[in-house]
């Protein structure tokens, strides 16, 4: 019991320290970014990127942890955008006051996530993906055809009288705050009972139900949380872009992008979607602003999607962690050539359970020891 835990604690210690310092350095770098880069083009890309960091993280909270791939999250993004757009127009809000509509955008997106989830989560896996795509197109069609969304003319955002030189900064910091909070929430959920239930659903939904997990409630909760955050980001995006149009607020590329970001970085991990969004969104925005051919970035996006699925199906972070882990294991194994000769046969490695449990001693490990444990045992004596 305790040996296993303490051993784990010992190796986790420095790794956790590295992780914490890494997060702090990244946060500090992102916080001072707009002070360093004042070029409007660069900060525009940065705002976009931060919005997608939040969106990919939010997508991952549902799809990454539960294994249900949603290709309909643009429903929440567009709903958030149109909520802010319509409210600002109809209530004639101007200036900074519009930002107070962001919670409303989240609330409306969450309210839509409930029936959306109840409908789509009746089916499993692949069918679920198809249903989310269908619901997405229904929403895009509605945005085109309802009068209160102003159809294809769209809705223009109220003008902000901010200094042109620092115009992007409030957007950047707000997007950064939302992205950071979402990532923190994602981390919190992953280690929580709720997150464990989600990951159990991902691995074997029926088995989870048979162990007391309320699978429908767990899935729907994650879907709503994810939708709420995406809605808030949609509202922010609308104000930043300055216009809500059906084809951009409800954009199929959004659906694919957030999924691709999570897949590239590592679906179901906390850092994966963040990394994926930082790479993909910044690269894509950079290409669209510098290259004249409009479609190049989309072609590259598609090629990247293929490359990720073929070469890195689990994503950058899990693959890198694995490589690093085996490298560390090899390095650790090397100096441990001298295990004091005490154990006649090094099968158990460092701690070969001194006194087996009282009751069940002799047959207590019928299939236990035969070294799936790892490198130290067999490699030592070729």
């Amino acid at each position: 019991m305790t040996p296993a835990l303490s051993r784990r604690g010992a190796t986790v210690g420095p790794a956790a320290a590295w992780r914490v310092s890494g997060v702090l350095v990244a946060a500090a770098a992102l916080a001072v970014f707009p002070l360093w880069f004042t070029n409007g083009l660069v900060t525009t890309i940065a705002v976009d990127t931060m919005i997608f960091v939040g969106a990919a993280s939010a997508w991952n909270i549902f799809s990454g942890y539960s294994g249900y791939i949603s290709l309909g999250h643009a429903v929440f993004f567009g709903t958030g955008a149109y909520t802010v757009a319509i409210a600002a127009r109809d209530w004639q809000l101007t200036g900074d006051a519009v930002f107070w509509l962001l919670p409303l955008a989240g609330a409306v997106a969450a309210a839509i996530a409930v029936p959306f989830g109840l409908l789509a989560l009746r089916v499993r896996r692949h069918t679920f993906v198809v249903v989310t795509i269908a619901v997405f197109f229904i929403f895009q069609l509605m945005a085109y055809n309802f009068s209160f969304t102003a159809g294809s003319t769209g809705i223009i955002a109220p003008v902000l009288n901010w200094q042109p030189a620092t115009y992007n900064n409030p957007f950047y910091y707000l997007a950064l705050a939302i992205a950071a909070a979402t990532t923190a929430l994602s981390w919190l959920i992953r280690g929580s009972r709720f997150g464990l239930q989600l990951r159990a659903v991902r691995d074997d939904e029926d088995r989870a139900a048979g162990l007391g997990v309320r699978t429908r409630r767990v899935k729907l909760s994650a879907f709503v949380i994810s939708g709420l955050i995406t809605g808030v980001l949609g509202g922010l995006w609308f104000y930043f872009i300055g216009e809500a149009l059906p084809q951009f607020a409800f954009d199929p590329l959004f659906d694919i992008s957030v999924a691709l970001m999570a897949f590239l970085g590592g679906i179901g991990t906390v850092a994966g979607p963040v990394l994926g969004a930082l790479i993909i969104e910044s690269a894509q925005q950079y290409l669209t602003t510098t290259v004249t051919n409009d479609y190049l970035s989309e072609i590259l996006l598609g090629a990247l999607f293929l490359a990720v699925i073929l070469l890195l199906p689990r994503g950058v972070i899990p693959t890198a962690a694995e490589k690093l882990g085996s490298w560390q294991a090899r390095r650790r194994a090397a100096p441990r050539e001298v295990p004091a000769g005490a154990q006649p046969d090094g099968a158990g490695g460092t701690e070969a359970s001194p006194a087996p449990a009282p009751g069940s001693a002799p047959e207590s490990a019928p299939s236990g020891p035969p070294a799936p444990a790892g490198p130290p045992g067999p490699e030592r004596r070729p």
Partner: protein
Amino acid sequence: MTAALLAEQVRRAFGGVQALDGATVAVAPGSITGLIGPNGSGKTTLFNVITGYERLDSGHVYLDGRKITNAPPQRVFALGIGRTFQLTRIFPRLTVMENMLVATQHRGGRRARNPLARAGGAADRRRAMDLLEFVGIEDHAAAQADTLSYGQRKLLELAYVLVADPAVVLLDEPTGGVNPSLIHHIEARIRALNAAGTTFLIVEHNMDFVMGLCDQIAVLDYGTVVATGPPAVIRADPRVLDAYLGITEDDDDGG
């Protein structure tokens, strides 16, 4: 005496196939009851119906006298029936400890209300570790579950079913595909649990195992129970020999 578990006149059809045709199985409290029968006789379907994975067409299921007919799986588990699957089902991408903690979820009232609490408090982890020790795979607690061997997976599945202290445990072929020493190990664990008060209903094809372990045996054929009784009686029952045993013993000799 109320049966710990009673499936009464259960009927369930899949299209034209009557998988269960009025089957009645009673499991006495504190017993180890065996459920045997040829392939396709409805054993696993009966398990699925009892544990809520499939709805029954007619009939009833009682747990300690309380009707649980068609209750969903999560509720059946919460009420005190744990089960394992014929093809072992664990959570491959969770660690062994996390597998254990999934089943811990609804124990402990206060913590259970905060879904964002860290998974597994000290007490839950200690209990999980005790159970892993009990089945003998405690060394693998931190390993990802898909690194376990088939036999170890069976033990893990047994261990996490025990987390919630179920009154009745349903085992679907606990010895299927595992080596003889592990079969003895599993048998010893079942006996130990039974001595501590857990009731068992076991589907099994291994006749030595069933005859040696069970107090009572029910024989299922074409969805109905054709015989019940202690092993000695079942072994001698001509209907059972006819339906089942003859064939199996030939198989055993051959294999």
